[in-house]
């Protein structure tokens, strides 16, 4: 490329000596280069996520089986979902799951992080231990508890309990949720601890001068200090509760008799066992829609209350 010397007339030269048209072109070229670097991410994202997501919108309005052609049936799938007692029951289970998943790991996580924040010696050791279940595969964590809670080979028979925790319809959902809580709370404790450590230490010194005890310091400085983290994780917990699949699928497959069925496992069966791909798509889209609502509520609250920092 030959460089053509442009001699700009008066009034065309900007402060840095580059004429505006060239500057604009340079800026455009820089932007183009930047998007070129984004290209691989966008390519795989469109192929795997965006494209199929858009297709879901269409298929959710068809009677597609997953094979062959699909015919358009409007909103029938959604009408069917509203009337479907299996779906309604699964949705209720999701809400029960959410309640447990907010309270149990949240409380244990807060307790763990508080205890960790009060000590110096062995803090790293305990933190590491609490974190371990989070890095262990779901299939293994599930197997560990299937063994321990088994009515024949587990701890139960040795202490006089022979409930089949996972096999009894009245305990199956709670028991699966317990395994998830067990693997999850330590992760929360570590996140809360990291958030606590970024709270301004001068606030604690000031509180001590005022004679505040440990609990008062925790209540009036620590908790407000980590509020953005608490709120954000609360939001994510709602979303994770909607999405939860692995442990239910691995341990009970939604059974017995649908007693631990959640929307994701129901949808999975509709898609791959019952060959109702169109109906499954409508359930998947409903789930995404619920997620979007939760995110929107969070965004509104965050803007209105200034939870950003």
């Amino acid at each position, binding site marked *: 490329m030959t460089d053509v010397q442009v001699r700009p007339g008066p009034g065309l030269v900007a402060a840095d000596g580059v004429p505006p048209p060239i500057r604009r072109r340079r800026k455009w070229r820089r932007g183009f*280069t*930047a*998007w070129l*670097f984004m*290209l*691989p*991410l966008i390519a*795989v994202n469109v192929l*795997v*996520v*965006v494209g*199929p*997501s858009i*297709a879901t919108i269409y298929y959710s309005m068809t009677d597609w089986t997953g094979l062959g052609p699909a015919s358009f049936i409007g909103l029938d799938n959604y009408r069917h979902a509203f009337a479907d007692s299996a779906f309604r029951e699964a949705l209720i289970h999701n809400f029960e799951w959410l309640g447990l998943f907010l309270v149990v790991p949240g409380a244990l996580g807060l*307790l*763990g992080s508080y*205890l*960790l924040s*009060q000590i110096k010696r062995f803090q790293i050791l305990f933190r590491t*231990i609490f*974190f*371990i*279940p*989070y*890095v*262990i*595969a*779901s*299939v*293994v964590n599930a*197997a*560990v*508890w299937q*063994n*321990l809670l*088994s009515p024949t*080979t587990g*701890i139960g028979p040795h202490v006089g309990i022979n409930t089949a925790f996972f096999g009894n319809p009245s305990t199956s959902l709670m028991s699966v949720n317990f395994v998830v809580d*067990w693997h999850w709370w330590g992760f*929360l404790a*570590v*996140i809360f601890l990291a*958030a606590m450590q970024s709270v301004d230490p001068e606030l604690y010194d000031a509180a001590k001068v005022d004679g505040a005890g440990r609990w008062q310091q925790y209540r009036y400085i620590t908790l407000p200090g980590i509020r953005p*983290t608490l709120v*954000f*994780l609360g939001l994510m917990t709602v979303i994770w509760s*909607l*999405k939860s*699949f*692995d442990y239910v699928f691995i341990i009970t497959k939604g059974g017995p008799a649908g007693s631990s069925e959640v929307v*994701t496992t129901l*949808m*999975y069966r509709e*898609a791959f066992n019952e060959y109702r*791909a169109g109906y*499954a798509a409508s*359930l*998947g*889209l409903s789930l*995404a829609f619920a997620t979007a609502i939760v995110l929107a509520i969070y965004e509104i609250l965050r803007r209105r209350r200034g939870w950003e920092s």
Partner: protein
Amino acid sequence: MTLQLARRRVPSLFPYYVLLLVLALFVLTPLATLLFNALKSNAQIGANPIAPPTKFTLSNFSQAWTDGNFAVTMRNSLIICLGSMAGVCVISGLAAFAMSHLDLPGRGGVATYLFLVSAMPAQLFLVPLFFTWTRLHLVDNLFGLILIYWATDAPFATLLLRSFLLKIPRDFLEAARLDGATTLQALTRVVLPIAAPGFLTVALISGLWSWNEFFWAITFIHDPNLRPVSTSFLAFQDENSANWALISAAALFMVLPVLVLFLVLQRRFVNGLTAGGLR
């Protein structure tokens, strides 16, 4: 004043350590049974499921290894893991670089988009993705699974890497440019060496996720010879139901590599994994 200070005893930390120990036992006891069971015979487990072994046996490991076809499935998992790590590092490295150093137009929107994508449930695109992958012969194909991991892990990895790259001053890049380096050379020769810890963190996390991953693996890999350890372990568990000695030995094959890496590099794992939760 001095007297008062002296009289106010420093509160003992003893109860804190007791409670921490209780929580630690709550975590470690179930995991310890995994190790104990793998070293016991099935009859010993039936006698007491949480006691340490009295007679050690290593036969569970050799039997589980051959019965569960672990030579093949560990290899599959390793391929998936390395492929996913490498791809995620490249894809999100390029993207994070564009967002942090190249004045990407609309980068604020891109960041929001990446967050939304990683928050959305997989069920949103699962059904059409499966049937598209079937048509493209990417079901029962390790690369097909790796491709999914690239797409699902890269958004989080990009946001994480961007936070590392933002710490690198732009002057470094300008200096490289003045020396005649192209943008890509500036990335590989200037940014990459400085941001190596960030890339290591991202590699570890995407490696961990793909090693442990279950949902996509069970949906997209059905051929027993192509299965990764997560789904082959589940199949092994079904075949040997209630033989917890064998199942525990098999579980350790899957857990030990992760656990060793985690304990050695735990600060990187913890910082990277909790970064998403700190907002």
